[in-house]
């Protein structure tokens, strides 16, 4: 009996060692511990033994049983781990293959993205958006802004006319007149929109382009406030490192007037092709609102002050993204649009 037991033990251990998969383990389990298993047979035969023998043999059999059970479970876990490893190897993928999405991504036009960026900087400074019509009264586009009929500066902006009294707005400034006539000051406005000039299309000109104007009306505004506002704004849009140059200029609707340059975004001010060697890029025109404009729109220029600044969104987008030909912005080639 003892020998038989030892034989079972050795045979089983040997079989376990040779088992390669879970099925083999299950077969061994059945052959040893099953209903007619070798160990089960031995346990069945114990009834024939004497009480003393039964206790001794029982202890022996239990010892073997425990040992074999343990070995079997261990081998089973080992095989399971190995099988999983094999499965993982089989399921391994090329992680460098491209990902998949059900919907291809869309793109906002670079001009919209630039506009939003500029606009949001101003919203943070207390400005609110204000819009108006593209087809506009000559009166609002020019006369109210201190550009009466036959003013020589009207030639600065070649105008598309609909009739004697109606034009395609040449700038967003008619919104200044609309705001002054319709809103109660004080206010701070962002006035975006398309504007139109009789300009033949080329790499840097377009008869249609997008302008954005800032307009503030309050009691005690000064040229210094305009400069400070622009400095804050420019740092928000172009970064804190950018330098600003605020220099005298002329616009009929402002006085004093200023043009604003920023240090070249490409070379940082050392001089390059983009800034034509000057180190500076002209980005906007501005000034203290001309008292005639305030008066024309029913405000007392001694009581109220205003300032305004306007920039071409197309131009800022071109500078920001290094777009060298403005025509690309109105052509809508998908290979252009998807870059932004």
């Amino acid at each position: 009996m003892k020998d038989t037991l030892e034989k079972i033990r050795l045979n089983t251990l040997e079989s376990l060692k040779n088992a390669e998969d879970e099925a083999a383990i299950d077969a061994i389990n059945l052959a040893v511990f099953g209903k007619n298993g070798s160990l089960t047979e031995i346990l069945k035969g114990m009834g024939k033994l004497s009480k003393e023998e039964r206790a001794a043999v029982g202890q022996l059999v239990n010892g073997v049983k425990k040992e074999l059970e343990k070995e079997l479970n261990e081998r089973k876990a080992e095989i399971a781990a190995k099988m999983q490893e094999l499965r993982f190897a089989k399921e391994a993928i090329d992680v460098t293959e491209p990902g998949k999405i059900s919907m291809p991504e869309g793109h906002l036009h670079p001009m919209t993205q630039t506009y939003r960026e500029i606009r949001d900087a101003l919203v943070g400074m207390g400005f609110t958006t204000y819009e108006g019509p593209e087809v506009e009264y000559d009166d609002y586009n020019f006369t109210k802004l201190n550009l009466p009929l036959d003013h020589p500066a009207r030639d600065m902006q070649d105008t598309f006319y609909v009739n004697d009294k109606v034009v395609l707005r040449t700038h967003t400034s008619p919104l200044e007149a609309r705001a002054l006539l319709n809103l109660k000051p004080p206010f701070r406005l962002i006035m975006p929109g398309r504007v139109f000039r009789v300009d033949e299309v080329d790499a840097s000109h377009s008869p249609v382009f997008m302008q954005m104007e800032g307009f503030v009306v309050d009691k005690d505004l000064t040229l210094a406030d305009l400069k400070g506002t622009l400095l804050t704004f420019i740092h928000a849009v172009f970064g804190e490192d950018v330098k600003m140059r605020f220099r005298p200029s002329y616009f009929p609707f402002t006085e004093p007037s200023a043009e604003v340059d920023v240090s070249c975004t490409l070379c940082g001010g050392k001089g390059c092709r983009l800034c034509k060697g000057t180190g500076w890029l002209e980005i906007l025109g501005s000034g203290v609102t001309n008292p005639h404009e305030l008066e024309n729109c029913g405000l007392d220029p001694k009581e109220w002050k205003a300032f305004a600044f306007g920039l071409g969104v197309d131009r800022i987008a071109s500078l920001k993204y290094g777009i060298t030909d403005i025509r690309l912005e109105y052509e809508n080639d998908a290979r252009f649009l998807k870059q932004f």
Partner: protein
Amino acid sequence: MKLPLKWLKEYVDFNVTPEKFVELMMWRGFEIADIEDEMPGISNVVVGRIEKIEQHPNADKLKICTLNIGAEENLIIITGASNVFEGALVPVAVDGAALAGGVVIHPTVMRGVESFGMLCSGQELGLTEADYPGAEVYGILILQEDHPLGQTIQEAVGLNDIVFDIELTPNRADCISIIGMCREAAAALGQKFVEPAIKQVAGEGDAKDYASVQVMDTDLCPRYIGRVVKDIKIAPSPAWMQKKLRSVGLRPINNIVDITNYVMIEYGQPMHAFDFSCITDGQIIVRRGNEGEVVKTLDGKERTVSPNVLLIADPARGVGIAGVMGGENSEITEGTNTVFFESAVFKGSNIRHTTRELHHVTDASARFVKGVEPVNTQLAIDRAIELVAELGAGTVIGGNIDVCAADISERVINVDWKHVNHILNTDISAEDMVKMLDTLNISAKVEGDVLVVTVPHYRVDIESSIESDWDIAEEIARVYGYYNIEPTLMQGDTFRGCLSPETRHEDQVKDMCVAMGCYEMYNYNFTGPAALNALRITEDDEKYLAVKLMNPFGEDQSLMRTTLMAGMLNTVALNCNRKTGHGRFFEVGNVHLNNNPDLPEERKMLGLIFTGAEENFFTLKGVIEYLFRKLGMADRAEYVPGGSQFFQPGQKALIKVDGQVIGEMGAVHPETRKAFGVPQAAYAAELSVKKLFELRENGKTYKAIPKYPTVPRDIAVVVDECVTSAQVAAAIKAAPVKVLLENVELFDVYRGTGIPEGKKSMAYSYTVRAEDRTLTDEDITDAMNTIIRTLKETLNADLRA
């Protein structure tokens, strides 16, 4: 405005580099676009004398020249030009020389003989006849005067200066003159500008005995001054004058014409000289043209004028077009004996109209348009007469003939100097302001709070109006330095910065389109009749009412768009033709309808266009439904067959929300597609951004999440072909079930085997649930039976077997 450095140096001590000068002027509001060499890009070209000319042994047309350029050894240079001769002084491009157009010269072997440079033509040096006589002659430029051998060509032709090209702002017409620019330059350099003294020439006799001037329209000609000079000796003007004229791009003609041009450059006042013998009865009449009157101008062109055009005339005929160009009939010629000089102010706006009417702009007209000033008119003619005397060009007759309706009295304005400080946020004392203004030759004195300013006659930009304080503030700021203005933050009320609800809405709509895979387009607002025609828009369509431009670029850009369709189709055509591989685009833009006598109606539209193998009516509709879900209007939307002619019949729908039409969509009509060059099917929609804004759901209210299970069920029914999906869905939703019936959705339409001809099977899914309990099988079956019964009753629908 071109300012030659040499000319500037006559008025200021130029003690800075040209680059520093550019910066100083920039801080004064004068942008210098360029510092030009008078001969840009030309280097290493020197004066040489041709010592010997030999025939090239191997080429008939080539000559071998021996050139003496003042160096130890002579140079051998081969030329093909025929106008060279021994002893001629010519420009010699030596090894490494740079010529016009970026050409660089190196020794080269020509037909077996080495040439060590090149003889240059005027053209190769970038010279015109105005720069140097003979420059446009075919062949080598033969230098006229004696020059040291080896001298640079720049010095030889007198073009060795630099010229500042200044971009003037329209308010400073006084600076379109050397004197005006030098005033500002002196101030920028911190120097006092001394007004040049003009020597008055008394002359003999009285001009009034010779000539008379009558101005019929003083509003168009506020001042007209004439002087007479007799015994004219027409001759070339002196070299110094010719050189100066050339340096600003003018071509010397003769002493009299050159004087008028010189004064125009120097003082900014255009002048004209008439051959006085051609003026009938010596009477100058400034009058409007007669309808259809013809004046032959100096350039030989016959110009038909109208009463809008001001003429200089004599009793018999027009002798010039005021402010634009003189007449050929009174032109200065070799035989001119007596000259009538004109210095006048013509109204800028009228000259502007004239140049537009005649399609002709001249140096003179451009200056009149920008504005000339009546005191300067007198200075200019005095200067011209001074030059006549200086050049010995004739005998000056005494006295002006001056017809003056303009106010030429001294202008004094009162400025609130504290207000000036307020505008600039500065703290400058009144006394300092006086000093600052003095640097600009503006005299002022302090009287308490008031600065009494005497405005120089040439500063017409400084107004006597409410603007005075601002005008002087600007002058003070220019002197004080914009760079010295300390930036400040705005004081006063705080403001809540925000996007207007409309702007936010537009942002959201654009972002939704992007989320649906669309690229954003920007198309021009212009369109034309051909495009409207291609869109099959007819007179009965409101989109036919386009706003028409008076001065468009061309017929195809003569209208403002009434629909976004044309631009969208152009975009799709471009992308198809270039095979860019993307077929979903959107645009938010305005269209205009000319349906209003005042301003046209402006509508902000959202346009969507899809093309490509995977796209169809329903992929586009899916995106619109997505937008509507996001905007909380999906349940209120309906799609009614119909829409514009640019859509294909049977595949187009008007889109309604709450019963209002807010847009339309459809398959683009094949004929329209063809006209725009779109090679494949395309689907487009146009929706009113404003209506979407008005009808969108603002603010949401939380609804409790169901506590009891929701049970999904499907049902398929067979209906007549004419029954629409919307009808079936509506019937299901309307079925009088006792449970909550939700999520009714079509998931399949089937025609074919098992379904009778003229019928179709439509399969819907839906869910049922109850608020207060778990549904029993009986509840669920009962609901389905109710739905089936309702469909049978309303649409004669049968459950699909």
